[in-house]
């Protein structure tokens, strides 16, 4: 695995946001005309999830999280020297959404901006990239490198509501993570890997240059097991994803621990990509992590793609005042196949409560999810 070690970088804060619309297992029971979805929801650990209505972008969710975070951090926006955006649901095919985020967030023009296209592994890759930006920019100056990492997806916009493999599982979320130089910070260690042979098991086939959008690619038809979707929707072979995760995730976590010279027993929290409840419970047992140190944050959110790790951290540890010192192992894995582990010591972080993004008032579209009951 590719090992990246970063010195003198601390995570100063983290905020996450979800849209104000929800879908529940009751909606699935009605849509599929099957009570089976109650049992499915229980097994996968998701009986309700957050859904961004059409027109709400992952960047909108991330901006909401970033605004809250920057307010609480009290950072001078001019001190931010890079904004990185990890997403598979950008605002436009071109240009990079990160450029629009520089101006939306009122950041200086002396600010680097770039998008990174990754899914379930994306938070760890984004963190590895952002941390190296800080390290390279700081030059030993305590007020030197400050980087904002925005990670989010409106992945449900790729999900066919009539595909039982994906519809009950996914949710939408955004996040903002603030990184800065600190000579007191413990090293952060990353362990990263890829196996592109997994391409076809978790994919949105059409809409890129390989298979451009046509009238035909947008038509939803009946596929394997009666699932209905188009080539512009996401396809997921759950058994293949599970098998891949079993083969790579334990190895990745062990490699991350070994490179950080940590044992699993001294870790205060393991935060994995929140794929689904069955997989997470199995991986926890397999890695012999105590239940209280293993974060599960699926219920009420769903599998939030690249935003699931920061969302789980917010769910678990958000509070007012600086956070306690914690040794964390983060583990992202999924489509690509792509995987990344991180060993990071977090201390005195600003971690605001979950931000609920308020969808701007507009005419109600057809087939929108229901607004959350207040």
């Amino acid at each position, binding site marked *: 695995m590719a090992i990246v070690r970063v010195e003198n970088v601390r995570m100063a804060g983290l905020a996450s946001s979800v849209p104000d619309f929800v879908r529940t297992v009751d909606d699935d029971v009605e849509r599929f005309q099957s009570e089976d979805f109650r049992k*499915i929801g229980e*097994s*996968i650990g998701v009986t309700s999830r957050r859904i961004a209505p059409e027109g709400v972008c992952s960047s909108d969710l991330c901006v909401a999280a970033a605004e809250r975070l920057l307010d609480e951090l009290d950072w001078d926006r001019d001190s931010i020297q890079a904004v990185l955006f990890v997403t598979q649901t950008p605002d436009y095919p071109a240009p990079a959404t990160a450029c629009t985020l520089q101006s939306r967030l009122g950041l200086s023009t002396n600010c680097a901006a770039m998008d990174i296209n990754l899914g379930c592994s994306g938070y760890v890759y984004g963190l590895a990239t952002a941390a190296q930006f800080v390290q390279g920019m700081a030059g030993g100056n305590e007020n030197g490198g400050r980087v904002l990492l925005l990670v989010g997806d409106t992945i449900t916009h790729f999900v066919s509501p009539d595909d039982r*493999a994906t519809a009950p599982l996914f949710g939408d979320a955004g996040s903002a993570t603030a990184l800065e130089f600190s000579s007191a910070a413990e090293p952060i260690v990353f362990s990263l890997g890829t196996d592109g042979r997994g391409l076809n098991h978790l994919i949105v086939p059409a809409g890129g240059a390989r298979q451009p959008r046509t009238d035909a690619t947008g038509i939803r038809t009946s596929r394997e*097991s009666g699932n209905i979707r188009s080539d512009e929707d996401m396809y997921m*072979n*759950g*058994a*293949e994803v*599970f*098998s891949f995760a*079993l*083969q790579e995730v334990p190895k990745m976590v062990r490699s991350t621990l070994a490179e950080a010279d940590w044992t699993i027993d001294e870790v205060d929290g393991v935060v994995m990509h929140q794929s689904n409840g*069955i*997989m997470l419970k*199995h991986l926890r*047992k*397999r890695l012999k992590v105590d239940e209280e140190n293993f974060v599960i944050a699926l219920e009420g959110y769903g599998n939030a793609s690249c935003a699931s790790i920061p969302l789980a951290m917010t769910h678990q540890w958000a509070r007012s005042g600086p956070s306690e010192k914690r040794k964390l192992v983060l583990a992202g894995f999924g489509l690509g196949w792509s995987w990344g582990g991180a060993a990071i010591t977090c201390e005195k972080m600003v971690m605001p409560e979950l931000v609920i993004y308020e969808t701007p008032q507009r005419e109600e579209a057809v087939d929108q999810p229901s607004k959350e009951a207040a």
Partner: protein
Amino acid sequence: MAQPDFCELLDELFELDPGTATGATVLKEIPSWSSLTFVGLIAMIDEEYGIALSPGVIMSSETAGDLERKLQEMLTASEAA
């Protein structure tokens, strides 16, 4: 690793009465067979046999006996390695 009884494990996983599954049981005809129990089967095999199975191996096994034979072959191969 102690050798578990594969058919007993299948009974448990698929919520069948004890003694229901045999070597001749056709996997896809088990009443509670679904994409979720499929994933459960991969998890069970990983837990009990220490093998992270590719789904193709299960798909190409018609009966419980076929699958168990393949698992035994894999165990023998990994012991020999």
